[in-house]
């Protein structure tokens, strides 16, 4: 399952880059993340509680940031599992500056298994898009705080 | 943490203490012992578990017994009266409306509800009416014929399809 999209953040690229490298920000901005504990360089242990309407699940996972080319691009990897199923996802973020704003192009690929995959297949694409948009909206709020 | 329920099933009142999460189909089969109602897909698709709830055909795998408290249920066991097969049962028998028989109880209950509402259905109305009940053996042709046969018997006279419907 693939997702892609674009989001424009009202700040220069350096500032957005700094934000994306701040574990506190990542923890607050990523939907469902309750806790993000550093496990070495750009590696985190994540506790996720995600509720989409009545469908609620708790997941334990790992988040890592790789292939960093500051301040242009990075790859986010998420692996996790819980009762409803498992997920392995990679997302590539590319940052472009234009007129003082940053355009983030993202492409993601996810493998999902378990009940969520068999029952929720039709919903995953939409939910992934929705979560990406929540993530960027949260980043925008973080920008305003600074 | 039981809830007390009182449900009228095929004319007799059944009272029991049940957990709220007990599905109606499990109540019928395991508490009351009426195993004519089948569990097929268990995911609200196949209609094998169809029963009448206050006269409407519903999937008993997708409701809790507590929701039926104080209400009236009819299962396939309620079709025959005094040892006499119901015309719908006769129709399925005579027109070969079943092969493996697993879908048959749900199919007959749905047919019963349909014929209460539409006594002289067209083939299209029958097919539309049973579209929530899956049969993997017959290809439906003989099921439709069985229901048509029952409709004619229940009205007393064979009549061209479409009238009074």
């Amino acid at each position: 399952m693939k997702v892609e999209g674009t989001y424009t953040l009202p700040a220069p690229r350096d500032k957005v880059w700094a934000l994306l490298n701040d574990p506190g920000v990542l923890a607050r901005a990523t939907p469902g993340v309750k806790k993000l504990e550093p496990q070495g360089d750009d590696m985190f242990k994540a506790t996720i509680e995600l509720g989409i309407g009545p469908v609620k699940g708790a997941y334990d996972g790992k988040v890592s940031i790789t292939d960093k080319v500051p301040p242009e691009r990075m790859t986010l990897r998420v692996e996790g599992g819980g009762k409803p199923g498992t997920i392995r996802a990679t997302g590539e973020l590319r940052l472009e500056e234009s007129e003082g704003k940053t355009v983030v192009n993202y492409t993601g690929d996810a493998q999902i298994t378990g009940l969520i995959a068999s029952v929720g297949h039709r919903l995953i694409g939409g939910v992934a898009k929705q979560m990406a948009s929540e993530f960027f909206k949260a980043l925008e709020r973080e920008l305003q705080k600074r | 943490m039981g809830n007390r329920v009182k449900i009228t099933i095929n004319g007799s009142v059944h009272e029991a203490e049940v957990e709220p999460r007990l599905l109606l189909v499990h109540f019928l089969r395991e508490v009351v012992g009426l195993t004519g109602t089948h569990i097929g897909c268990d995911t609200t698709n196949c209609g094998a578990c169809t029963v009448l709830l206050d006269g409407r055909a519903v999937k008993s795998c997708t409701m809790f017994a507590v929701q039926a408290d104080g209400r009236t249920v009819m299962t396939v066991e309620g079709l025959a009266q005094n040892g006499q097969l119901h015309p719908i049962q006769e129709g399925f028998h005579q027109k070969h409306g079943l092969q493996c028989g697993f879908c048959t109880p749900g199919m007959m209950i749905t047919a019963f509800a349909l014929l209460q509402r539409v006594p002289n259905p067209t083939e299209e109305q029958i097919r539309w009416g049973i579209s929530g009940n899956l049969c993997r053996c017959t290809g439906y042709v003989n099921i439709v014929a069985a229901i048509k046969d029952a409709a004619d018997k229940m009205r007393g006279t064979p009549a061209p399809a479409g009238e009074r419907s």
Partner: protein
Amino acid sequence: MIPGSFEYFSPQTLPEAVTLLQRYGEDAKVLAGGHSLIPLMKLRLAAPRYLVDLSRIDGLTYIRESEGFLRVGALTRHGDIETSDVIRSGYPLLADAARVIADPLVRNMGTVGGSLAHADPAGDWGAALLAAGAHVVATGPRGGRTIPLDEFFVGTFTTALQPDEILTEIGIPQSQKNSGGAYLKLERKVGDFAIAAVGVGLLLSSTGACEQVGIGLCNVGPTSLRAGQAEQVLRGKKPDDATIARAAETAATESDPADDLRGPADYKRDMVRVLTARALRLAVGRAKGGA
């Protein structure tokens, strides 16, 4: 499959039900027909600790016209709408939608309010009622408030309802002489969710132009969608073939489908175009006095 344990309440009045929701908040779920919630509970994807069953509250099942609106009680079953004379004679958009929801057995239990509150992007009522320009009434501790359906769907399975609010009524502008509508659904088989579905509601002026128009899209986005730009293409114009074709193409660009087992996104987007054009033609014919 057996759901997790929960405590069951069947209040007799709306205030009692609201009080229970206030007490249990996010741990409680409202049970109407149960045909979305119970399957999720059986899979244990949903495990509410408290269920508040509305079915014993009187006065939530009705279909009537008053003060310029068609009012439908939230507990009205899909099957009641399918067979209602008021709906059949004046609301073809709703009549079309009601008969293609799931299958007849599900329609005997599932309710219109429950379907909206569940906010599944594949729910047929979402798209149909967006096209009809509907609003809902939410009843909570401070009484009722009206929410336009445009503002109701916040995300997949997520609505503007507060945890202590219950959807109690759906309102739709009353049908007029020159109004028409249609709902077309492409499905793999009876009872399935839509590959794509499109609802259209419109009102023609005396000159035959589109005075009001609503277009709703089903299962081609994270929520039920309203094709506002496509509506804009039609507004004030005569719905001739060229205008309909342009509106249909616009609706397709406004849809946001994902690849899944029902087909790739491009295919679904094109089906939105085809269904929008067909539904518009059908609705225009009905507004002009066809069946």
